[in-house]
């Protein structure tokens, strides 16, 4: 036996109580791991995917309203603008409406100039520039559907009907693209704007949004203001923001995810604090005479205090570590199932460090009062030795 085993024996003496406490902690950390991982993945995805000098210009009323194609060249000629590209949301799905895909019709050359983080084989790039039906497939999507270069892929649109009156659009996979940072999401598809613009039955010569590359991130605000000012009196007014702010706002249309996550996990942890704290207090109260015996045998106050704190740490880790591992697996599975709808979700290093901090804090907060009480048990009183 050693001190650690003694601590374990103490923690495990009431198996059902240990199980229930550990399960409560497990549940709280599972909630935290899944929701926190989801949020941090979104935040990190936004950070990584957002170019420092990229702005996004959308319709002032709503980003689902189109902008005139003519705005592309107007913006391109403005001071501080290094490059402009544009994109249209295709509203695609594959085989059935539940299998939603992120598909964008883009201007091939300017898009790839501005999104230089995308790594594309040279032959795929050439095909993308020359073949209107070329489909550039993100690595994750290729992995998901097993698509290969040269494969014919029919994709349905829930927005755009083609000249044949069909919502099914035929594409040929031009190649698979990756990103220079593995954390950058590649669960989407790109095809040339011209194919959509010429083929669709309505909305010709309109684009969904502009992506504006500025000459320097330092002038982002001025350029954004200048763009919106340029179209302030036009029939279609614009709203320009940094790509990061745009992505953030896009995510927040579903709700203040940060607040939701903080509220839910906060409530879970607060409950756990009460449950685990109360359980520890109860456990120590039940062991008053045993602690007194240990003190009689020569276990000093520091040792008693440390043992109770370590017991609290042990119980917390027993629940929290498997919960975080399961949350990681869950996020991985959810990412695979929802590729194209949500960015890749995972528990990143920051989240792991944060969760380790919460584990430690929870263990200390729930353990410190029982430890203090245990340390201050009066042997004479506890053993009724008077």
């Amino acid at each position, binding site marked *: *036996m*050693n*001190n650690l085993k*003694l601590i374990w*024996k*103490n923690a*495990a*003496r009431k198996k059902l109580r240990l199980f229930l406490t550990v399960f409560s902690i497990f549940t709280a950390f599972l909630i935290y791991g899944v929701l926190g991982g989801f949020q941090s993945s979104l935040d990190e995805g936004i950070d990584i995917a957002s170019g420092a000098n990229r702005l996004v210009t959308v319709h002032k009323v709503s980003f689902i309203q189109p902008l005139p194609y003519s705005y592309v060249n107007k913006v391109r000629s403005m001071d501080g603008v290094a490059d402009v590209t544009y994109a249209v949301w295709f509203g695609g799905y594959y085989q059935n409406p539940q299998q939603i895909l992120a598909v964008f019709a883009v201007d091939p050359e300017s898009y790839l100039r501005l999104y230089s983080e995308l790594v594309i084989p040279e032959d795929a790039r050439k095909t993308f520039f020359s073949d209107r039906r070329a489909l550039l497939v993100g690595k994750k999507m290729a992995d998901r559907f097993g698509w290969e270069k040269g494969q014919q892929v029919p994709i349905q649109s829930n927005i755009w009907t083609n000249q044949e009156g069909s919502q099914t659009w035929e594409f040929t996979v031009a190649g698979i693209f990756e990103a220079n940072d593995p954390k950058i999401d590649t669960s989407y598809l790109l095809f040339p704007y011209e194919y959509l613009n010429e083929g669709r039955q309505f909305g010709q010569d309109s684009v969904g949004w502009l992506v504006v590359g500025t000459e320097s991130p330092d002038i982002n605000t001025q350029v954004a203001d200048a763009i919106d000012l340029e179209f302030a009196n036009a029939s279609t007014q614009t709203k320009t923001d940094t790509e990061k702010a745009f992505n953030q706002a896009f995510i927040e249309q579903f709700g203040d995810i940060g607040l939701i996550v903080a509220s839910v996990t906060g409530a879970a942890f607060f409950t756990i604090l009460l449950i685990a704290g109360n359980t520890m207090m109860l456990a120590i109260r039940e062991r008053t*005479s*045993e602690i007194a*015996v*240990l*003190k*009689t*045998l*020569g*276990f*000093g*106050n*520091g*040792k008693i205090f440390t043992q109770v704190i370590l017991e609290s740490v042990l119980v917390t880790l027993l629940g929290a570590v498997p919960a975080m591992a399961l949350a990681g697996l869950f996020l991985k599975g959810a990412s695979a199932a929802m590729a194209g709808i949500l960015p890749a979700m995972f528990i990143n290093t920051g989240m792991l460090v944060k969760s380790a901090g919460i584990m430690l804090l929870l263990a200390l907060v729930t353990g410190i009062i029982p430890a203090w009480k245990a340390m201050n048990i009066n*042997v*004479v009183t506890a*053993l009724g*030795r*008077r």
Partner: protein
Amino acid sequence: MTEKTLIELDHVTKRYTRGRDTIEIFDELTMGIEEGAFLAIMGPSGSGKTTLLNILGGIDSPTSGSVTVGGQRIDNMSEGALSKWRAANVGFIFQFYNLMPMLTAAQNVELPLLLTDLGRSRRAEHVKTALNVVGIADRAKHKPSELSGGQQQRVAIARAIVSDPKLMLADEPTGDLDRTTAVEILEMLQLLNKEFGKTIIMVTHDPEAARFASRTLHLDKGHFVQEAAE
């Protein structure tokens, strides 16, 4: 041969305050106990027997006066120093054994050794020896709930001797046992006293138990009133 004094109490006073009342347990108690003695302390309830044992074992402190054990004054030691001192010098035996219910007999005996620098194998050797001395090695892997009262007390005695202390303090060690088992336990204490040289101070209500000691002191209202010797 001159007997060496192991314990010296010099004008020890002990008072408790309960509410507005001050209860005096001892007043200026002075006594000496020789090394190797087997001393029984008898007396009515509330006479201060257990308090005296607590003071000798360093788990209670006198209100005034000095307590010296093995040449070391323990009445003015810090709590941390007293813990270390107890671990090294005193073995306790309680009336209700006070074993840890979730530990086996061997693990219970090993507890005091966790405070030493001994490695695992050395600790195991000491535990085995202690269990052999008290004749309960065959129950080493049993938990207290699987042992009889006498067996539990043997385990408690093994725990008290495992770190080889000079002084053993026993508080009603046979108070919860039947006569036959009580005699076995008392004979064992006698053996530890005679063969292993342990100084044993035993508090008891039972005159039969006190007969196993080499000397008996009667405590009443904080004073020794009469001494009986075998």
